[in-house]
């Protein structure tokens, strides 16, 4: 039953997708016809027997190393349309139609298959065509490109002058074909056809080079065969489109050394001819079968052989030879060409992994994974944990022994880098992908091949596990194993070190020493060392995307998380003390942490303060001491009792009384200093301030039992909140233990949210849940294993999730069953009930369901509201785009990275800037804010009463006084904000609760009816209002700017 609906809604969606993506071939064919005839016309204008020499593209001819390339031009033997257009398998936005130009035999000599002569002539032939196309008026422009990134096989892309809006960017790709130009036997895999390819003077076979020529020779034939298979089988064409969409979304498999549209259609036709699929299947089924075939079939090991056209059978020896020479074999029906000769084993591995992941998606995810498979873009930054770019522009080492041998130099370099990293990183990396795209848009064959190194080489690494990646010692071979040890030493150079290990083993090893909190930099260190050592690159050439975001977590020069050990110790001592307290009516039965610092997810866990201790060490009072200390909340439970009062107020008071008793006891018996207000009790312990809260168990048991049963029963909301928070704290704590990268990513996410002044919209706990979702539901990707990757995926989740129509289910301990999901969905539907009537009228604009909160009541019930959520999504989207660009493109200056956290202040109606030296923790400030726009409404002087650091004079006072001076959880910004909320309902503040010096203000929308009445009044209001706001924040407010007065729509 379930499965049926799943597929049903998916089929609906897939059909719609196909409808949107398919091209209208009726109108396209006319366009193609016109374009082709104008191309033919232009080519017809070429004078017969035109003498062609290497002068047309001397650099190209020189670079591929060909000689004797002159020929006299003859008209092509014919033209034929091929590729996806001819089999109706084109998918938007691709509107490029392939046109084969059959090269005439008269232009070639029998032996032109040697030494790149064919390639040179092929290129020159295109040069001639290009010249004449350019002079044609019906052609707008002609661009050079290459066939599957193979630089020695350029193709022409022709853009007709006639444009049709329906097909933006319509172009025709001119591909030369070389049917029966050469003898097939001469190009057999075991022959050498490039004389310079030798090993110790003995010529080596050149299978890749040979395949490159053979491919052209059978282009026409293969295209005809495909046409035959795909015509009259609509579903097959649809499946092709689906597969294309899927592959195109994944940049790691739709590249030159892996899949392309042609290969997909070949695989499909293989399946069709071998009866793996039949006509009863629909497109989606074929899609699934194909993926399954790619992921699991044993046939890949043997090689795929399309049924031969003629009587020739592929002999066993030939098969063996193919297998030995190429990692993947897809032999065409001529039996001579391996169509997958460009595919590398790494590329194929990646393809298989992707395919099996997709099968998992189809099985497990909502709507059969439709969104994840077809709609989610999986580019390098989101796919790989550790991205590296090598700038190799102008590095001659790459092409030292020539640009084109059997393989091209760039492919060889890719291989070299890959094998180096594979050896250097060992089991730290799950997979390493090295891709170097050569052609860029404005390439022209005249400039030769030396300019093709302009794009950086990209390396993507998937980390196998954080533990392995963080390992500090790599143990190599035993000292006794001389050969291995020598090899190891040669690879690692001075880094290798003979060491004696605990188990008595003496072995070569490498040690990567680093601090506890910088272990994520170990891989970076290794990669840089290897690449520098073996490729003689400089540090500037190697751009590794690892620590570029760390600046945002920096506190006074280092990551404050390094002090968390102390913090946990202090907490342990405290909880022991609390449980030991005697002499209070009810004993403390349990102590639980609530604050995020105690689960490593606080952006800035507090640093120990010398004054907040049992005994103050006067020696440590020398330096600059902060005058404020944040309080961390800790929840305690007391023994059960029936003597609690019945009403809320009294319960709260009783709690306070208990807390005071506890404080008294701590102070008097154990000598632990405490300070208290009417609502809070703060305990100083080991340099930290802990704030105690009591959970009243009666409230708790009621929470568990669903309040709805009896409306008279009333759960105190304080207790409910406490209970939820404690549940959340323990679940997140468990999660960060399971995923070591979780905590840093959560901290980055929190920093980002608050840096863009969203602190008031999205609770910290909600952010933790969002990040948890990234880790718990990683499909269609693996679990993130690096900060940048995790952070990017958090941003994309925020930006791309369909918040309006789906609840986000965060199943932390994997304990949601079907009933739970139904319950959540029902809750969700009721929160969206109002939507039909009024689009603004929904609660929980971001519906977050967690095990302890299936109705999204805890964190996102009221905020963000729909407007805030939209703003949040827009910011996340733009940040995600900036971040992906930063990973992929050449800029690596820190300023651009800072942009991710620097919020544009002119997006608010008014802005309040605060005195930086009046913020309680000035070092948390990311960027000082300034504004040079808008109307400067007011300027305030700084108060002298409060300083974030204790004046040196105070340090000489008695310790008791110092303790009283120390302000616990004092945050002027918060005071100002609560004042704003009370007094100015029409102003909505946007702020950074971590420590920003700017508060954005927007005017809340007014009722249009009300407006008419109050128009007079309100028009003069904004200035007055902002001045009043300034008055309210006297001593803290530095400047107020007005950017936009209230708008009345």
């Amino acid at each position, binding site marked *: 039953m379930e499965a049926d609906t799943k597929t049903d809604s998916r089929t609906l969606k897939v059909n719609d997708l196909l409808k949107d993506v398919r091209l209208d071939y009726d109108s396209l064919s006319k366009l193609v016809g016109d374009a082709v005839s104008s191309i033919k016309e232009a080519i017809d204008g070429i004078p017969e027997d035109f003498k062609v020499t290497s002068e047309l593209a001397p650099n190209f001819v020189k670079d591929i190393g060909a000689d004797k390339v002159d020929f006299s031009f003859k008209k092509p033997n014919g033209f034929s349309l091929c590729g996806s257009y001819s089999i109706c398998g084109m998918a938007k936005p691709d509107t490029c139609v392939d046109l084969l130009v059959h090269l005439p035999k008269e232009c070639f000599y029998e032996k032109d298959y040697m030494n790149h002569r064919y390639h040179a002539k092929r290129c020159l032939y295109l040069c001639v065509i290009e010249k004449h196309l350019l002079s044609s008026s019906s052609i707008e422009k002609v661009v050079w490109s290459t066939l599957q990134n193979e630089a020695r096989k350029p193709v022409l892309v022709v853009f007709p002058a006639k444009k049709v809006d329906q097909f933006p960017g319509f172009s025709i790709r001119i591909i030369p074909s070389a049917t029966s130009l050469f003898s097939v036997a001469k190009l057999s895999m075991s022959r050498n056809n490039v004389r310079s390819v030798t090993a110790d003077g003995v010529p080596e076979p050149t299978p890749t080079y040979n395949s490159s020529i053979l491919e052209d020779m059978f282009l026409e034939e293969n295209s005809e065969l495909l046409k035959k298979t795909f015509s009259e089988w609509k579903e097959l064409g649809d499946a092709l489109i689906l597969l294309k969409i899927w592959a195109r979304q994944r940049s790691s498999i739709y590249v030159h050394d892996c899949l392309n549209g042609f290969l997909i259609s070949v695989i499909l036709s293989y399946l069709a001819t071998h009866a793996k699929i039949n006509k009863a299947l629909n497109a989606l089924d074929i899609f699934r079968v194909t993926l399954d075939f790619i992921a699991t079939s044993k046939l890949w090991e043997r090689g795929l052989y399309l049924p031969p056209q003629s009587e020739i059978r592929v002999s066993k020896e030939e098969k063996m030879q193919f297998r030995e020479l190429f990692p993947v074999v897809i032999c065409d029906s001529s039996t001579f060409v391996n169509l997958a000769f460009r595919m590398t084993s790494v590329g194929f591995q990646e393809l298989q992994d992707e395919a099996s992941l997709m099968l998992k998606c189809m099985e497990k995810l909502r709507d059969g994974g439709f969104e994840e498979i077809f709609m989610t873009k999986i580019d390098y930054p989101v796919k790989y944990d550790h991205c590296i770019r090598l700038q190799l522009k102008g590095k001659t080492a790459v092409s030292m022994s020539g640009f084109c041998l059997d393989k091209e130099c760039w492919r060889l370099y890719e291989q070299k880098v890959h094998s180096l990293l594979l050896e250097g990183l060992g089991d730290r990396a799950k997979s390493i992908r090295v891709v170097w795209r050569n052609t860029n848009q404005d390439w022209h064959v005249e400039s030769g091949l030396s300019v093709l190194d302009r794009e950086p080489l990209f390396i993507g690494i998937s980390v196998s596990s954080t533990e392995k990646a963080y390992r500090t010692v790599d143990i190599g071979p035993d000292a006794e194993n001389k050969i291995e040890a020598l090899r190891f030493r040669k690879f690692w150079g001075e880094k290798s070190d003979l060491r004696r290990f605990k188990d008595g083993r003496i072995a070569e090893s490498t040690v990567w020493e680093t601090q506890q909190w910088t272990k994520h930099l170990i891989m970076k260190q290794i990669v840089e060392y290897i690449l520098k050592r073996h490729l003689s690159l400089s540090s500037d050439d190697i751009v590794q995307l690892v620590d570029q975001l760390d600046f945002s977590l920096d506190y006074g020069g280092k990551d404050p998380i390094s002090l968390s050990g102390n913090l946990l110790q202090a907490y342990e001592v405290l909880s022991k003390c609390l449980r030991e307290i005697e002499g209070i009516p009810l004993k403390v039965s349990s102590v639980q942490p609530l604050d995020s610092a105690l689960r490593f997810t606080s952006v800035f866990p507090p640093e120990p303060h010398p004054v907040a201790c049992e005994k103050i060490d006067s020696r440590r009072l020398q330096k600059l001491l902060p005058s404020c200390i944040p309080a961390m909340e800790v929840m305690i439970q007391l023994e059960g009792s*029936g003597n609690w009062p019945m009403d809320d107020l009294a319960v709260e008071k009783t709690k306070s009384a208990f807390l005071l008793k506890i404080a008294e006891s701590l102070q008097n018996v154990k000598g632990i200093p405490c300070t208290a207000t009417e609502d809070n009790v703060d305990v100083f312990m080991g340099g930290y301030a802990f704030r105690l809260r009591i959970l009243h168990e009666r409230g708790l048991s009621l929470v568990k039992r669903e309040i709805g049963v009896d409306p008279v029963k009333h759960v105190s909301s304080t207790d409910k909140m406490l209970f939820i928070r404690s549940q959340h704290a323990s679940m997140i704590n468990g999660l960060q233990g399971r995923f070591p990268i979780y905590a840093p990513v959560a901290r980055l996410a929190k920093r980002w949210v608050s840096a863009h002044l969203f602190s008031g919209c999205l609770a910290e706990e909600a952010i933790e849940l969002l990040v948890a979702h990234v880790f718990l539901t990683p499909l269609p990707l693996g679990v993130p294993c690096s900060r940048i990757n995790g952070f990017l995926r958090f941003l994309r989740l925020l930006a791309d999730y369909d918040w309006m129509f789906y609840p986000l289910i965060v199943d932390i301990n994997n304990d949601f069953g079907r009933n739970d999901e139904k319950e959540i969905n029902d809750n969700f539907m009721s929160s969206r009930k109002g939507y039909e009537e009024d689009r603004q009228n929904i609660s929980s604009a971001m519906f977050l369901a967690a095990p302890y909160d299936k109705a999204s009541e805890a964190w996102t019930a009221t905020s963000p509201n729909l407007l805030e959520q939209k703003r949040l999504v827009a910011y996340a989207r733009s940040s995600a785009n900036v971040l992906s660009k930063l990973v992929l493109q050449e800029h690596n200056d820190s300023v651009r990275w800072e942009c991710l956290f620097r919020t544009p202040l002119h997006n608010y109606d008014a802005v309040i800037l605060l005195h930086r030296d009046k913020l309680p923790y000035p070092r948390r400030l990311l960027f000082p804010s300034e504004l040079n726009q808008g109307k400067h409404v007011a300027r305030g002087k700084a108060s002298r009463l409060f300083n974030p650091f204790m004046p040196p004079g105070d340090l000489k006072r008695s310790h008791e006084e110092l303790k*009283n001076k120390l302000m616990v959880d004092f945050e002027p910004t918060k005071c100002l904000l609560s004042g704003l909320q009370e007094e100015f309902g029409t102003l909505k503040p946007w702020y950074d609760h971590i420590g920003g010096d700017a508060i954005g203000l927007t005017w809340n929308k007014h009722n249009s009816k009300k407006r008419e009445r109050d128009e007079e009044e309100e028009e003069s209001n904004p200035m007055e209002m902002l001045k009043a706001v300034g008055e309210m924040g006297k001593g*803290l407010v530095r400047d107020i700017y007005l950017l936009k007065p209230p708008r009345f729509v």
Partner: protein
Amino acid sequence: MKETRKLKKTNLPEGETDGKRVGKQIQRKKKVQVSNVELNEQSQDTQQANSSEKPKRKKVELKKKIQKSKEINSSPVDGKLNGKMKKRKEKVGNVDISEPNLEAISTKIVKGKKGKMSKTKKKRKAEEISSAKVEADHLKGERKSKKSNKKRKMDMTSTKENKIEEEEDVYQISSGDEDCTWGMKKWVTDYYEGRPGLDELQKRIDDFMTAHDERLEQEKQDKEAKAAEGGWTVVVHHKGRKKTTETESGTAVGSFSQAALEDKISKKKQSEPVAHGFYRFQRREAQLNEILSLQSKFEQDKKRIQQLRAARRFKPF
């Protein structure tokens, strides 16, 4: 419209002649120009203690000038604007006058600092441009951002010139160190006053509790007295064995331990599968329910697809 008007207020050169400025800003929207004119007068207004008649006439003249010289076509909005603006101007003018003394002083100070300020401005500009990246994406499209950068540059040059005037109507807020009704002083005092020491707090709670108890006692007595008055006794209905469990009045049992509760729940769960689906009608009902829920889900999906279609979400590019 109003936005731009307000914005431009700060950017007005004081000494420049109207014609010159008009030329400079002519590329911008006409509305802005209108406001410029208005604003220029406003600065005069503030000095002259604001008479509404004169500036109005001037404005009309000026506008004519602009329209003639630069051939900007006017729209009906202008007419409307005039009326509104008049009102507004008066008000703003009044506001400015209320703080005249402070401004005079501040202007001088700022003049002295001007040199320094412009330097820092440049720095800021650099920062601003870099941060424009993020903003650019918000605006969708790089080209747009370039434009806005340019615009901003233009703005900046004019702001530099206009520094003095800008400062003139900036409202000054005192540090508030003398006055504890608002601001930092209040917050700091509140903080310390909120911590009178453990003993004092204990006392307050004790007081509250006694008061609270008394109040409860009083309420109870009142109730009894009321009941006794009519010779009736109010009987409250309690369902089942409510008294033994912990509900409103159930003090007898007190609280459950969490463990016991969980135990109970787990027991309940265990026994469920036996009872569930034991009878045929139960199974049938369950099946029916499931079908219904699936049907509704299917309907929802269909609806959603329609919505998606409207939003054109099926484009994987």
